[in-house]
């Protein structure tokens, strides 16, 4: 950032302000005592180790695994271990920096860790949380990728660094972007071309837009990533180093067979380590992730994932390489290469014959139709209506505590970890970019299917919801590439219901929503963030005269370091709020009646005194959470009638939800019987009754 001469005149006032702020900061637990900074892996590791060392009584640092690059995936466990064993307490998992370029999430997580540790035991709220529950913080899930923010050339890559042949051309990571003009950034190149699709945006000359021939606009530019075609395949930077996008590598709504989603679900060291850790910590009762999707700042109506807010310039560059994964579909010429069918001219009749023959063994149901087939169960894709209230309430509180109303860059989740957290792990699960705008941008991009401004606000919820639901289920408009290659692809794809096939040509600009480029620039300009490289001429070795420019990597996804402290403070408040909601199972009352003859009646009531239920509706549907167990400590044969020895309740509502039990048992006077109630996410409680 260029120094602003005006600052010097404000200097004396600034000093006074800083003094005042420092006094306040001392009274309130500050997030990150040092001035906010973005930490390299080495710096973060040092910070974590010193925090854990300085607060040995309540902090434990461990590694959950190693990346392909050999870096550790750190988890910090923060709890006062005295009392109920930590593993039996409800836990909050905070995880950040899945997308390599979303480093601010890592910093907010570190700031929260710092504040929790330093606030114990002085701050009463923090003390209460760390005595009764536990907070796990994994500040950086993608340390290999995140290190790119500190490299000499900043490329803004989002994936990890496990090698991957992104364009599947038999060469590995052979063509990545290059900093041709040596300004330390990988940005974009625009090249004048008669058949270019793009034009300079007349409303904002720094930006580009897709020319609309219907409006008489003529495209004049092509847009590429900054670099040269290293492998001479006609594409630039189509196969950079790495990798897999970790927030595309998990099991809910997993995007199959895309280059950045990995060879298969949970394929990466990082994802595997997180999964193994998560299922070994089933006391995790809520998940808060920092990432590039959002269900807290501007949660969509209807429980579906929100629409994306993409950057058009980036999408245009990515579109230039989209064809790299389909180059090489060779048409054989003739009847699909099946010479044994006689090498005849292709005919409609032959096509019909092929279709019928192909179908013989396939779509027909079981023989004679006699066998009953269980209807195929499908996983839900939207937050269940019964759970939506919790999400709405929590999101509203988040908005109140952070003041955030509008995220900037946000993308649709597909295979994101937080979605696994809700749909399969069964707990309230959130994702937020962690920063954004304080005011809703009414001129912003539409949410899919809804009119601007109507999304989730004053608009009729019924109508907005309906539109969301019909729009969300559909695939983005399929752009059919022209020509023989396309015909070949379609025919080869063949078969009825191409449900398993790929989505072709989900290109930039023809999705329903426009990009947020203008909003980004407005934000950068108003915050004096130097986040855009002005277009400058450059002599490209192959393309001739080009202009290099565009958004600086990391600038759209990360605010300036100076903001980290305040983000840490507001998110600490949110963490304290979230951890106050945990379910808590308690044995509310017990009563023993002696009926004589060695027969006793034991009555008990078990209650959930927390706010959240012991299991959300989705958790019950998904059988993701063990039912609450209520068990009487007697031999089964001693129970004469009434409840069973071991009872299970799928879920106990919060705020005093209760169940009652009654056992009639045979016992000896004076015997002490233990009654146990245990919830996977709500702790446990034991009561002892004496038979008398």
């Amino acid at each position, binding site marked *: 950032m260029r120094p602003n001469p005006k600052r010097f005149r404000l200097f004396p006032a600034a000093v006074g302000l800083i003094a005042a702020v420092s006094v306040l900061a001392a009274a309130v637990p500050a997030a990150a005592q040092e001035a906010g900074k973005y930490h390299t892996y080495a710096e973060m590791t040092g910070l974590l180790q010193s925090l854990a060392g300085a607060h040995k009584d309540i902090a434990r640092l461990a590694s959950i695994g190693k990346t392909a690059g050999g870096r550790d995936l750190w988890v910090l466990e923060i709890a006062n271990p005295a009392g109920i064993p930590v593993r039996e307490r409800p836990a909050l998992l905070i995880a950040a920096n899945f997308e390599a370029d979303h480093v601010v999430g890592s910093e907010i997580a570190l700031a929260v860790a710092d504040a929790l540790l330093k606030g114990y035991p002085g701050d009463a709220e923090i003390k209460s949380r760390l005595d009764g529950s536990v907070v796990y913080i994994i500040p950086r899930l993608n340390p290999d990728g995140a290190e790119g923010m500190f490299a000499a050339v900043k490329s803004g890559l989002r994936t990890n660094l496990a090698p991957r042949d992104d364009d599947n051309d038999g060469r590995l990571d052979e063509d990545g972007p290059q900093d041709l003009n040596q300004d330390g950034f990988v940005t974009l190149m625009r090249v004048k071309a008669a058949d270019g699709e793009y034009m300079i945006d007349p409303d904002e000359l720094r930006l580009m837009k897709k020319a609309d021939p219907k409006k008489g606009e003529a495209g004049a530019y092509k847009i590429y990533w900054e670099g040269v075609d290293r492998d001479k395949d006609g594409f630039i930077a189509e196969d950079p180093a790495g990798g897999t996008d970790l927030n595309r590598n998990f099991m809910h709504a997993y995007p199959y067979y895309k280059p950045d989603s990995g060879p298969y679900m949970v394929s990466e060291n990082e994802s595997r380590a997180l999964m193994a850790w998560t*299922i070994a910590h089933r006391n995790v009762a809520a998940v808060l992730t920092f990432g590039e999707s959002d269900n807290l700042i501007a949660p969509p109506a209807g429980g579906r994932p929100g629409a994306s807010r993409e950057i058009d310039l980036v999408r245009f560059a990515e579109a230039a390489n989209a064809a790299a994964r389909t180059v090489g579909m060779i048409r054989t010429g003739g009847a699909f290469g099946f010479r044994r069918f006689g090498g005849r001219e292709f005919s409609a009749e032959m096509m019909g014959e092929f279709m019928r023959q192909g179908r013989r*063994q396939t779509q027909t149901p079981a023989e004679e139709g006699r066998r009953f087939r269980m209807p195929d169960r499908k996983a839900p894709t939207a937050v269940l209506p019964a759970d939506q209230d919790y999400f709405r309430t929590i999101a509203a509180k988040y908005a109140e505590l952070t003041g955030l109303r509008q995220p900037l860059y946000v993308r649709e989740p597909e295979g994101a970890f937080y979605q696994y957290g809700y749909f399969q792990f069964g707990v309230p699960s959130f994702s937020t970019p962690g920063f954004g705008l304080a005011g809703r941008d009414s001129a912003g991009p539409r949410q899919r299917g809804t009119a601007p401004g109507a999304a989730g606000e004053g608009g009729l919820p019924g109508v907005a919801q309906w539109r969301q639901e019909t729009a969300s289920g559909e695939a983005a408009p399929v752009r059919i590439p022209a020509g023989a290659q396309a015909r070949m692809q379609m025919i080869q794809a063949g078969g009825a219901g191409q449900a398993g096939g790929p989505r072709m040509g989900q290109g930039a600009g023809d999705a329903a929503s426009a990009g947020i480029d203008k909003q980004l620039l407005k934000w950068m300009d108003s915050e004096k963030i130097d986040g855009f490289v002005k277009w400058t001429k450059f002599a490209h070795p192959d393309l001739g005269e080009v202009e290099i420019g565009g958004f600086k990597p990391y600038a759209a996804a990360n605010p300036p370091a100076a903001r980290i402290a305040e983000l840490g403070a507001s998110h600490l408040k949110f963490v304290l709020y979230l951890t106050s909601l945990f379910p808590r199972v308690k044995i509310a009352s017990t009563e023993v009646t002696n009926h004589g003859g060695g027969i006793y009646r034991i009555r008990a009531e078990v209650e959930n005194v927390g706010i959240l239920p012991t299991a959300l509706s989705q958790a019950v549907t998904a059988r993701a959470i063990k039912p609450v167990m209520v068990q009487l400590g007697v031999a089964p044969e001693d129970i004469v009638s009434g409840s069973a020895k071991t009872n299970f309740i799928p879920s106990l509502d919060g705020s005093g939800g209760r169940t009652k039990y009654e056992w009639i048992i045979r016992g000896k006077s004076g015997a002490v019987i233990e009654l146990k109630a245990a919830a996977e996410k709500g702790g446990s409680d034991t009561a002892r009754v004496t038979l008398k």
Partner: protein
Amino acid sequence: MRTLIKNRREMRTSIKILAALLFGALVTAVVPSGALAQKASDPAFKVKLDFDRWHDVPELYADMAKLQAAFPKFLKLQSIGKSFDGRDLMVMTINNPDTGPETGKAAMYIEANVHGNEIQGAEVCLYTIWYLMENYGRVDDVTRLVNERVFYIIPTVNPDGRQYFMEGPGGNARSGHVPVDDDNDGLVDEDGPEDINGNGIVEQIRMYVPGKGDYRISRLNPNIMEPVPFGETGDYILLGSEGIDNDGDGLVNEDGPGSYDPNRNWAADWQPDYVQRGAMDYPFQLPEARAVNDFLMAHPNIAGVQSYHNSGGMILRGPGAEAVGEYPMSDVRFYDELGQNGERILPFYRYLVIWSGLYTVHGGFIDWTNDGLGIPSFSNELWNGGQYFASPELKEQQKDPESPIAPNISRYYFDKYLEFGDEFVPWKPFDHPQYGKVEMGGVWKKFQGRVPPRFMSEELCHRNMAFSLYQADEMPMIKMGGTSVEKLGGGVYKVFVDITNPKLVPTIMARAAQNNVVRPDILTLDGKNVEVISAGFIDDREVYKVKPSVIEAIDQKDLKRILVRNGYPGKTTRTLVYLLKGSGGVTVTYDSVKGGKAAKAIALQ
């Protein structure tokens, strides 16, 4: 003497017999016994294994080691990883090093026993290795197959489950041994089945309560218990299965080892447990699945997969779920041909698609190998009860409900006459620790039902092997054919190269090409002084001579390294046409991950 030899004929016979015995004794003393046996009998086997018994894991591995020791040139035995309990997963590689390294040839992958109780596939695998080695050099087609291809054979991918099945009463063995809390009580695997009377079988328990029970002995067969109709009473009550309430929770045998389904933990269409029971928490969470997948991904030359299961008599292919979508037409076509031939090789087996012919399977193994790894894959369900009474006449008889081989009692008939009652466990009195005087029994031994009768095992092995060898033979194989050069003047040449895949299976399946899960075939032209002006494929040279427009130019930037992303179809010859400028010689190479590599040198003149 007079009375011993009644007549001259008898005496001559007696003398002949005596002479033969003497001769035999002489010869046996002089000639080594092996040579004598080989004189007119079929050739003896080098390694004696038996296929009419079921083998536990140690014996299976010992047999594999025996084979490897007997045929060290062709066989390599290795572990690909460890099961949950720490047992090795052993793979046998069959390759003839004289005809090239493994990686250059298409490989057939055969495995079995992912469900621990589905045991006979391991015997099929063992038989396959044994048969190929014993007949190499003796049967031409076997020799050719072993020379041309590679085989990776893993007889058991769930040794924990197999051993649990073989050692114990046989229940609960479908799963592996990763602990799962089946009854949600916070303890894992704490209450499995027990064999109280020590006979190796978990039996049913009945109690004789004359006139007061709700079960009676069936009139059709004294071994069967049936519930009484409404309004009547019987002489028996059933008290469940043998077992003890280990954890004192009032339930018996509710949480044994496992249980999950090791064939639902694969990464294609993997679904969480509530959509697909037994799928565990994420794909390749199970150590066995991970080891197998790591092996498959490290061997991209695998172009055929067979996973043996039981039972039902089926030759299955994916998709496992309707929503995954039917395979593209060109893939269905070769699957159909393989499957239909399979039905002829395996009578009583039907070629079916999993979701429509069997039931929905999410996250199954062959869905993963087909969709995620691009390998044509089958899963055979071995053994079909219809094979008990195999002829059309007997099938007719079975339609009569009074017939002794009517379907509900046919296996009792078979057991009695063919297995001499070996498989059924009759009711016997027992003094139960909890219930008192009862009878236990009334069940089939664990080998009855899903597993063939022992005496029918070798045929099952041979026929299933034959189907897999047929599939292996039809894996892709790229060959270069004839070439010709047309001199056009000015240093420009037109070069024609015939390229053939004579096998049924394409080098890359259509779905695999769409999904980009297989490295494309790469066509390279090497030539020091040569530049490529254009390149294209044509179907027929003669047609091209008359109609040059049939050529479609390949639109790629680097024509010296052409990607053929959709691979080479099966049973196809095409001609590659290059327009070159330069001089000297060129080498054209077609490199396919699953179809091998072929090259041709051409001089430009």
